[in-house]
């Protein structure tokens, strides 16, 4: 009896010890793991990011105009199948089609699918296709393709570009814009919030005043005004960097405010006084002592502000003021969905929207999960 309770308390103690000696990162991970929706979000996010990075391999065609299929404009998605009236096949296949346009079809392309056995196009895996560069090397193998013609599992747009290929590369671009934007916002917030929080007093008041002012200006209208003046001669890449930079310059105030608040409470702690008495300069104290004290909060804030960057970019590109062809982003892909023609006839244009929603939701779930995990008071509430 006593033996049993002894071992139990020993185990308890071990658990407690593990709890008290665990680093902050381990504690956060422990709590994060328990949150189902956050975990699902994290996996979705990883899959999406990886598919964005490996887009050239995962997609059969180039996302730019070079990869267009001029015989299949505004084409419906071709879904590979295994079986039809002519029997089954171990390899998935799609059908050959013939497109006609005449006065009879109201000058609209009408696709006539041939379902004969000889008209099957078999899907091939690890097939050779267009060359692409990845990590400095040139490859030509793609995950899948077809033996004759081309395959478009999400359909094509009005110029014949493969929507599946575009969607995956768009994820990449949107993530890149978000990353650059968040990074710039983060550096600015660190500098401004750090100075305001560390020195306090009148410096803090002035910086707070500026931060609040920037916060009151509605960012999208302001950004629209700026983006409208981008010279037409700028290349797509320059536009891309400019837009990410502006997103960053607009996004810093919220983060700066949080950093300042943390610093204001932390700077009166004893360990800061100790460091100062040892003669450490302010830069050293901020960098080595104060910032590490709330790294986890900063990471959480960054994750939370990420979807807003992606959303802003999408809204801008959607209006036509953000990124433009040949750069692919989710917003660029949504530019043409507004016309009634698309709404009524080409609904597959909306497939990227699903990816967009999933991406934003995944970020929100992960951000919420991280915030709950990093918040020391979250246990007491539940």
């Amino acid at each position, binding site marked *: 009896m006593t033996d049993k309770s002894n071992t139990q308390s020993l185990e308890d103690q071990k658990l407690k010890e593990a709890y008290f000696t665990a680093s902050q990162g381990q504690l956060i991970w422990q709590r994060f793991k328990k949150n189902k929706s956050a975990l699902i979000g994290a996996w979705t996010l990883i899959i999406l990011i990886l598919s964005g990075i490996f887009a050239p391999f995962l997609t059969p065609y180039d996302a730019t105009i070079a990869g267009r299929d001029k015989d299949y404009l505004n084409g419906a998605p071709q879904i590979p199948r295994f079986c039809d009236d002519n029997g089954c096949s171990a390899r998935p296949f799609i059908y050959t089609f013939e497109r006609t346009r005449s006065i009879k079809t109201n000058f609209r392309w009408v696709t006539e699918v041939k379902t004969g056995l000889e008209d099957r196009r078999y899907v091939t895996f690890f097939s050779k296709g267009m060359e692409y560069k990845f990590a400095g090397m040139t490859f030509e193998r793609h995950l899948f393709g077809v033996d004759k013609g081309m395959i478009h599992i999400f359909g094509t747009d009005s110029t014949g570009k493969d929507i599946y290929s575009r969607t995956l590369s768009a994820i990449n671009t949107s993530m890149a814009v978000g990353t650059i934007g968040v990074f710039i916002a983060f550096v600015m917030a660190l500098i401004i919030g750090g100075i305001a929080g560390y020195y306090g007093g009148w410096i803090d008041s002035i910086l707070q*005043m*500026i931060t*609040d*002012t*920037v*916060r*009151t*200006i*509605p*960012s*999208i*209208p*302001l950004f*629209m*005004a*700026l*983006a*409208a*003046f981008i*010279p037409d001669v700028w290349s797509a890449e320059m536009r891309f960097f400019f837009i990410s930079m502006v997103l960053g310059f607009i996004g810093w105030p919220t983060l700066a405010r949080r950093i300042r608040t943390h610093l204001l409470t932390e700077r009166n702690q004893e360990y800061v006084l100790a460091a100062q008495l040892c003669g450490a300069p302010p830069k050293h104290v901020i960098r080595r002592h104060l910032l590490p004290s709330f790294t986890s909060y900063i990471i959480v804030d960054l994750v939370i502000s990420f*979807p807003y960057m992606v*959303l802003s970019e*999408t*809204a801008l590109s*959607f*209006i036509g*003021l953000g990124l433009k062809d040949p750069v692919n982003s989710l917003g660029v892909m*949504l530019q043409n*969905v*507004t016309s*009634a023609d698309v*709404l*009524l006839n080409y609904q597959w244009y909306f497939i990227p*929207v699903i990816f*967009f*929603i999933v991406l*934003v*939701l995944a970020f*929100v*779930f992960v951000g919420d999960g991280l915030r709950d995990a990093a918040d020391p008071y979250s246990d007491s*509430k539940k």
Partner: protein
Amino acid sequence: MLQFSKFVFVRASLAILTLVLVSFIVFSLMELVPGDCAERYLAFKNSQGSIISLADIETERVRLGLDQPYLKRWGLWIVNAFQGEFGDSCIQRLNISQLLGQKFWLSLGICLSSLVLAYAIAIPVGIISATSNNAVLNNSLRLVSYMGLALPNFLLALMIMLFSTVMFGNSLTGLFSKEFRDAAWSYDRVIDFLGHAWLPIFILGWSATAFAIQTVRALMSDEIGKLYVTAASARGVSGRRLLMRYPARHALSPIINSLGFDLNRIFNELPVVALILTLTEAGSLLIEALARSNDQQLAGAIIFMLTGSIVAINFITDIILALTDPRVRRSIVG
């Protein structure tokens, strides 16, 4: 009373100071943009067929006062801006306050209505979800809030438009029917306007509602756990009376405080929604007049007015808070 007027005075001067800062930021950004008003106007004339020279640009610059030093022009701009006078538009050569006038007030009205709609839904729903232990209700509300963020409002607008085109043959765009577009305000026009305005109000309110529900819920569940609520219920106050008189009152002040930023968020979404619903009378003026024609005078005026209305809301909410909550009055002045 003296304390209160002092509070109002401090707040008002802070608001004006903010506006001056805003005007400086906006004005500088508009200056940084390559090309100035004179060049733009003459480039426009050039495209219309008249031949212009460098000397023409210089005379135009002098005429517009663009040869004056930067700070002086900013000073002139801000003084005029406070009187609601923004000069002439770069390209259209029309007085900006005339050009914006009614359109701006219509847009502001739509945005404020969606803000009201958002909180009219969010406050009761948020309070209910914070107090109830119903897991299904809470989870579905959480999902709705997430969708409010992730489902972009332009998509929502598109869906509704598609639905109404297919079902009723009417695409629900614009703010007025054709016959009322340039008519003077009359009873019929107001009715026509309301018949069109509900859609943008609903769409703009959609994500605002989702945000507001989350805020209200978080604030309420924070307050409900506090000791004064327990004390009140120990005294025998219960049910709705307990909620309304104790935690809800406390939870409300941060919400009132953040109204200005909610308006900011709605302004951010206005251009996109306006573009889809082709609200030429309202927000898409921003896109039409500013983005496509590169009109920096007009752009500056619009952004200044939008920010000005946010600052005004912030000021009003500060005053309301100070009226209802003595702690606020003391904290700022004392």
